[in-house]
């Protein structure tokens, strides 16, 4: 069960510059957990102290915001694409 996770520019320094990382997992939460496991620098960027997703980071499964699906329990399938989309302020 491999999902492609798109890493936004501001977080790529924690993935050795990779913009897409292939990660295993059956749910969005599992995928993100495995992602943080292999790329530890991402952990506190994605999760708060209680293990919840940070409120200024959105995660999309394909093109849907997982907050409006089953949040971290949202099921994902082999070949799906997930995107991490943080708030950026630059103008």
């Amino acid at each position, binding site marked *: 069960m491999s999902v492609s996770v798109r890493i*936004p*520019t*501001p*977080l790529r*320094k*924690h993935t050795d510059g990779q913009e897409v990382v292939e990660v295993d997992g059956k749910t969005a939460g599992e995928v993100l957990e495995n992602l943080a496991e292999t790329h530890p*620098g*991402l952990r506190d*960027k994605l999760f708060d102290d209680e293990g919840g997703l*940070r*409120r*200024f980071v*959105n995660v*999309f499964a394909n*093109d*849907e*915001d997982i*907050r*409006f699906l089953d949040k971290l329990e949202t099921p994902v399938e082999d070949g799906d694409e997930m*995107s991490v*989309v*943080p*708030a*950026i*302020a*630059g*103008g």
Partner: protein
Amino acid sequence: MSGFDERLKQIKSQIKETDVDSVKERWLEASDHSDLHLIDVRERDEFVDGHIEGADFIPRGLLDLKIENEVPDKDDKVILYCGGGTRSALAAKALEDIGYSDVESMAGGFGSWKEAGYPVHIAETLDEGQLTRYSRHLRIPEVGEKGQMKLLDSKVLMLGAGGLGSPAALYLAAAGVGQLGIIDSDVVDRSNLQRQILHTDDRVGDSKVDSATQTLKALNPDITVEGFETRLTSDNIMEIIDGYDLVIDGGDNFPTRYLINDACVKAGIPNVHGSIFRFEGQATVFDPKHGGPCYRCLYPEPPPPELAPSCQEAGVLGVLPGIVGTLQAIEAIKLLLDIGEPLTGRLLSYDALKTEFRELKLQRDPDCPVCSGDPEEIEFIDYEMFCSFDG
């Protein structure tokens, strides 16, 4: 009888004529005439002098060319009028010949309408200079003279005269958006000039609002620019936003972005959002009044300052705001003219390195701290000043 009179008589016997009383009843007195098209086929100077309110204006000479844009359904009811009922009769025949099934000509024309004492509408129209300046807009059916008048009557508030605000303001000024408000408390710095194309090298050290005003007025003296050389705060925001039709958010920091979002929700106006980072840009339209999400539905809270170092460190390719800012300008024009499909509920993400546009679906959060409740009761938050999220 002359040849023309003979021909006219013959045509009038083939078409359907109606009278001014019937048109008044069906056009002015009916609560709904959405399936009825009233078209003034006279020349421009006659139309400008006075016409029936709400009528479309297509001079007879252009009728065959333009009718399919105005009336795409050939079975819709169309009433034509001219000065005295002759040109509209000929025009009615011409429309029937190209397949329109329900065309009427108003007998006696506008002359009889006036004699009957029915109301004459004198619309504001573009002057000669404007007809030339906006001629390429006037040729687009979705804009036209009505749309251009609407733009000239519109007010857009720009948050920031920086990377995004520069291209957006330039194009909106050029398009003839009648009033641009510009909020910026900064002065022009040489490091801005790599992307902030409103400003020039000889204005380094000048206020951005002054520099922007100078550039925009030079491009189009037809518009007015209202400058706000101040930092946005919870105290001044509602006063500044008052009277504006929409906001273009080209801010460079989270506190003002949240403030402008909350104020737009409170004022019930759309917020055209854009943001940039290195080679990546995002744009969307926040418009909760029309069912879409707001910025806080997407990001309920800004990141804490420790996760958001200053903007100077972030870096951005100078051309990138050119793409994102012009996308914002186009969205603004569409919203002002009420045409097309705005980016409401869709986050457009642009990756310049891959030349890739992607769309993500945004939802309105039913528990949004700002747009889920009564707009009257929104209270503003002044967050501590900091900029971009750079993990």
